[in-house]
Structures are given as C-alpha cells and as structure tokens.
C-alpha cells in the first residue's frame, strides 16, 4: 500500500494532564463557550437590537 496522507496514521502523543492544567483548560473552554454563545449579540439593552451592536455613541437620536 502506498504511503499517502490519507492512510498515514500519526503516532498518538500521550497527554500529561495534572489537576491544575485540567482545571485551567476547563475554565478556558468555559470562557470560549460563553464568548461563542454571545457572538454578535451584544450585552446591554440597546445591543440586542440588530444593527446597533457596535454603537458606542449615537449622535442623532
């Protein structure tokens, strides 16, 4: 069988995870999840309206 990208299996690295790293990883994932959840949605009352997500100063009310 010819060696191609499709059939070549990379050796698996053993992950060494101590408690501290694991916890940190969980925290980071949680942060990412929450950021992704909010993507493009904005945070305060006015941001919930489509088209106003990036408004910091509105000159003509």
């Amino acid at each position, binding site marked *: 069988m010819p060696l191609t990208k499709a059939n070549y299996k990379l050796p698996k690295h053993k992950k060494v995870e101590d408690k501290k790293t694991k*916890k*940190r990883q969980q*925290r*980071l994932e949680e*942060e990412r999840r*929450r*950021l992704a*959840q*909010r993507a493009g*949605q*904005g*945070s*305060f*009352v*006015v*941001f*919930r*309206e489509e*088209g*106003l*997500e*990036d*408004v*910091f*100063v*509105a*000159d*003509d*009310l």
Partner: protein
Amino acid sequence: MKQSKNFDLIQKNTSDLIDLWMYNFARNIPDFLNGNNVKQLSGFKNVKLSIKNHRPKNSAVVIGGGPSVEKNNHLKILSNSNYNGAIVCTDRMLIPCLKNGITPKKFPKFYVLSIEPKDVTVKLYDDKIIKKYSKGISAVLSTCIKHEVVELCKKNGLKIFWFHPLIDDFRKLESVNKIMNMMSKSDKNPKGFPGMQTGGNVGVFSWIFSWAILGCSPVALIGLDLGYHVDTPLENIRHYRDYLKAYNNNKSKAGKFFKKITNVDLKIKALSDPIFDFYREAFLDLVVRTPKWVRTINATEGGSLFGNRIENMKFVDFLK
C-alpha cells in the same frame, strides 16, 4: 438569543429603572437645556471621518474603586508620576484622588463621570476638597443623574457636560431615548445630546468615554476589578444579603450565585458576584467591538478582567 439566566435577570432589572431615570431627567431639564454637550470634549476633528482611522495623541488612565487600587497603591504611584495623559475618574474615586494628590493642578486633563441614578452618588460630590480644585475638573453627567448631584456640582463650581445614556432602540419612534433627546434640543444644542453606551456601570463608561469621546489610546484601567479578592467572605459582599433573602437564608443556594474566576493573564483568582459577572460579560463584549486603534490596558494587577483585545500590564510599566 442565548444568554446566562443571571444576565437576563439583571438586564431586565436595569430596564425597570426607567421610572427613576425619567424622574431624574425631568428634574434636570432646566440645567441641561442650555448646558454643555459632551461632544465639546471630543478629541476627533471629524468624528464620522476619523473614528476608524483616528491617530491617538493622548493616553488616558481610568480610575475605578475596586480593591486592587488600594492594595497596589496605585493612587500614590500615579500621584508621584509625571503622567501627562487624561485622568478619567469614576465619581466614587473623585475625593480619594484629590486627597492623594491626583489633582487637576498636576494633571490638567481631569474628568469625573457619573451615571448612577440613585442617591448613592450624592455623597461622592460632597467634600470641601472638590471646591478647592473645581476650576480644572470637567464633570460628565448623564441626563438621568440624581438632581442633587447636579446641584452639588454647580455649588462646587464644576463644569458640567451632558449626554444621554442609551437605554433602548432610538431608531424607533416610541423610543424613550428619542423622546428624551427631543426634549433636550435648544438653541445651544439644536441636535440635543448624543446617546452613549455605558456598559451599565461608571467604570466601563469611563473607558468608553476615554476613547470614544476623548479619542485617547491606550486607555489604562486601574481599580476596575469587576470582582472581589478571592478570600473575601461572602457576608462582606454587597449583594449577598439580597440573595440570602431571596432563598430564605439558605446559604448553599445563595452561594451558588457567587463564583471564583481564574484570571489567566495574572494567574490569580477573583471572586465574582452576579452583578459584576454581568458587567464583566458586557465589557468583554464591548472591548472586541472597539476600533483597531483602541488599546485597552488592564493595569489593575487584580480582578477578573482578561480576554481578547485586553492587554495586561503593571501600572508602573504603563506610566514609563
């Protein structure tokens, strides 16, 4: 849209403040009708053309009242420095700043900001030292601020600049913001006042003001922790009693609303309550939406703020 339950709850409660906002707004009308517009402080030559391609000439330091400011002696460090950028002071820190030598005499670009509509703001402007330095202080006030605050600012001789806090979709005819602005138009301000995103608290608003009005970058944050020291007993946290009351003194249930956040930049933990968590979420949303020229430096050396577009730095290094 998916948001945390806590986020939705606080957002709703914030909207419920509308009665108080309007009560204050009505009482402030005689003062702001011919008042100064916050836009008079603009650091942009032509806002529409230059906000995206702005080249900032000045930096700013935003001073919040979080525990890190005292713990890290940041007021003294600033006071002893030769910093020549803008001092953007939250109302809570005005008196402590002046008493620690951070005065408009030494730092001529000196601003104090207020957005809180409740009574708590009044005492923050009630001290003899404010009158002593009044000439160099610009007070940036929401049109919905407690009227007694306006009276105190006038009594102390502060120069007041007005803006509307953004509270709803001003594109709609029935918008409260739109009606507020219609009532604000005058010969001096034929277009009324601009509406500004506040982020829900004066610390975040001070950061927005620094770059979106003054055109400053980088903007360094001190005392803007949006959290407590991790070892703070829950009983000492402002909102804990409210949660205890809501859950019939069940400490276990009430305690679930208070969490420890690991600040990955500083490798420390901070304790967050639901209110700070809401503000923190809002800030993280806002900071990624700023123009590219805006640099946000977290120089608190404590607290819960970290993430995309937030640089972490020691305050002394920022001042170098």
